[in-house]
């Protein structure tokens, strides 16, 4: 009982430190502590399922302890910037004002291939276009292009389009999605009218979407 809890505590600290040492490239989308909890939780659950000789209460206590650690770490991160930095690290610039920070890349064990791949994933195929690239604590790269390569915004072009709100599904697989009606000013009467105009029955609709301006997409089921 007590031993299991102490062992879980030791393993939690060990895996947390290991993942912090491994670096953010291993982390993916999760924060370090979240990844550790997910890894250990799955292991504890699989042990509890496979090993019938181990008391289930021990596994439940161990799983609860992990949840407690997760709560504690998230509360501690909210309360203290230092703990947050210690557990999750800092965002680090790998391209600063157009200059590749080779020392920081070495420290992060981030190869040029990794960086170029991350940039390509952001639709940036030329390193010269990048003004800032920041490796976030989640392991993802955020980037800002140099002003000359940024897309002009609508306000810069003095061409602001009308705002029709969000496009919502109104009929999915022949079923009406009434909870979306308020977002696009729809009601059953309007939908009946759209279906009548299109000369189609509701059952034959695969997808009908609409915004505040009216219907946007209508896809009919294949027979």
């Amino acid at each position: 009982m007590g031993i299991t809890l102490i062992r879980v505590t030791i393993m939690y600290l060990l895996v947390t430190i290991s993942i912090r040492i491994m670096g953010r490239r291993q982390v993916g989308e999760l924060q370090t502590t979240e990844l550790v909890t997910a890894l250990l939780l799955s292991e504890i659950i699989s042990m509890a399922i496979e090993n019938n000789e181990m008391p289930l209460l021990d596994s439940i206590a161990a799983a609860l302890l992990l949840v407690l650690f997760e709560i504690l770490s998230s509360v501690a991160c909210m309360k203290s910037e230092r703990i947050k930095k210690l557990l999750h690290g800092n965002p680090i610039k790998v391209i600063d004002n157009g200059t590749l920070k080779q020392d920081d890349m070495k420290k992060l064990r981030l190869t040029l291939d990794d960086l170029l791949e991350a940039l390509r994933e952001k639709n940036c195929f030329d390193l010269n276009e990048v003004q800032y690239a920041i490796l976030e604590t989640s392991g993802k790269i955020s980037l800002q292009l140099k002003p000359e390569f940024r897309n002009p915004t609508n306000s810069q072009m003095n061409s602001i389009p009308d705002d029709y709100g969000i496009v919502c599904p109104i009929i999915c697989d022949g079923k009406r999605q009434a909870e979306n009606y308020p977002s696009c000013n729809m009601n059953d009467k309007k939908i009946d009218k759209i279906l009548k105009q299109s000369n189609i029955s509701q059952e034959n609709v695969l997808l009908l979407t609409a915004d505040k301006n009216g219907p946007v997409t209508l896809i009919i089921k294949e027979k």
Partner: protein
Amino acid sequence: MRKRITIGMVILILLLTHTIMGSFITNRKLSNLSIIANSAYEAMSNDHLPYQEFKKLKEEWQDSRKILYIFLNHKTVVELEDNIESIEKLSDTGKSESLYTVLIRTINQVNDLKKSIGITIENIL
């Protein structure tokens, strides 16, 4: 935030209760078994067959087994159960030498179990 802290506190209380109560109850049950088994051992050392103690041991086991299965590794509890049942069978047949061996094994097992649940560096590592 407050909700998360409350959940955390509840989990902490549950864990502490589980750990302290579990250790206390298991320790007490094992101590009871150990006391009875040791008194049977002393009687046997004085060339008596302590039927009364064996009966008590069996009764104490029946009383403790469910709790022990909840808190301890089932394999070790099964081994202990096998030995205690053997004591009962051997006491019926009167085979004192075998009985003596099984009784010593049972005492050792109970003592080992007591040691194994203690929060010590050896057990943790």
